[in-house]
């Protein structure tokens, strides 16, 4: 009888945990964080299909560090970004970069942006430290920024990149529709550029 009660209790706890993961944010597994706020280098060349007069670089950078995104989650500053050269782009070099090009031909066809993670080590206390993550961008797609009209076949660079930076910070996908980390978005929808309560709870959990 005692074993049965314990087993049922364990099942109940697991069911609650799983129900939580179905209806809310999810962290990357294993759970991992940066030691200090990462400074993402945003490609100074910009994205050539963006016609906001700045090729999208400043708006992308500003969206990443905006108080409407990760830094407004209530955990203080969790990410910085600087418009700079990404000439030395390389996975695993410890410098997080957002490349507006695709230097290795990784992201063609139906790929819009690719984020490579996996660079983490275990700290002495058993938690995991992220030491690099990099983003590349398809040059075969038409992008728009919030500083211009969206044509209907374009994708907003801010929304996609704030989502990708969420992964860079250690977040997985949320099943909450309307969250930045929700895994589906359509053309001309820049909603993911502003985080939702669910995204903010995830960041507060991590940082």
């Amino acid at each position, binding site marked *: 009888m005692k*074993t*049965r009660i314990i*087993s049922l209790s*364990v*099942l109940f706890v*697991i*069911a609650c*945990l*799983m129900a939580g*993961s179905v209806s809310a944010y*999810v962290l*990357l*597994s294993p759970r991992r964080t940066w030691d200090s706020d990462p400074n993402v280098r945003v490609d100074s060349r910009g994205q050539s299909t963006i016609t906001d007069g700045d090729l999208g670089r400043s708006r992308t950078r500003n969206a990443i560090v905006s108080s409407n995104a990760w830094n407004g989650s209530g955990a203080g500053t969790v990410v910085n970004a600087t418009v700079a050269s990404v000439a030395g*782009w*390389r*996975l*695993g070099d410890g410098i997080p970069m957002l490349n507006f090009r695709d*230097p*290795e031909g*990784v*992201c063609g*066809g*139906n*790929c*819009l*942006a*690719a*984020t*490579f*993670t*996996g*660079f983490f080590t275990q700290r002495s206390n058993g938690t995991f430290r992220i030491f690099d*993550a990099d983003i590349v961008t398809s040059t075969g*797609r038409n992008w728009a920024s919030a500083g211009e009209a969206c044509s209907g*076949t374009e*994708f907003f660079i801010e929304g*996609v990149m704030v*989502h*990708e930076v969420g*992964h860079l910070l250690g977040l*997985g*996908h949320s099943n909450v529709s309307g969250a930045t980390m929700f*895994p*589906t*978005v*359509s*053309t*001309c*929808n820049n909603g993911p550029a502003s985080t939702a309560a669910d995204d903010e709870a995830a960041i507060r959990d991590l940082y």
Partner: protein
Amino acid sequence: MKRLLIAVLLFALAAAPMAASTFVAMRTPELIADSQAAVQGQVLKVHSFWSPSGRIVVTEALVRVEETIFGDAPSIVRVQTFGGNVDGFIVEADGFPKFEAGQRMVLFLSPEKDGVARVTGYQFGQFHVQRDKAGVEFAVPALDLGTNVVTKDGKPFARPQAVRLDTFKDRVRETARRSGRIEN
């Protein structure tokens, strides 16, 4: 009860997502239009290495072709994807096709240079062949939960479902026939 507990735990672990990339949804007609061939095959061997530039990890799989569903393909296909593990240096690249020796799968293949192919549409063009308890084979979409999907038409994206393998291949052939990729 113990079996049930283990099953629930395994499911919970399997449901844990990884990092992601963003892809435009592709459906079968688009996969066919962009592919040189679609094949059913078995993965013989997989190995990962740094690209010649030293900037990214590449994984190459050798796939023995059991059946060409449409198009032209050699008896053994070399397929490359990104991400992998080189001497413990792991690059996670979710949304990109993944291979393990022994797996059977259906692949839509895009030609690449030097005799190396890529999977059309990344994970959209990869389906695992799995058998149920009754021995019926299914084509199970490889698309994982870590993939961020955007739609071109503004409609919600419905994740593809497993289909009986024979039915799936018949549909692919029929679509390929209608689009002139298979002659009557």
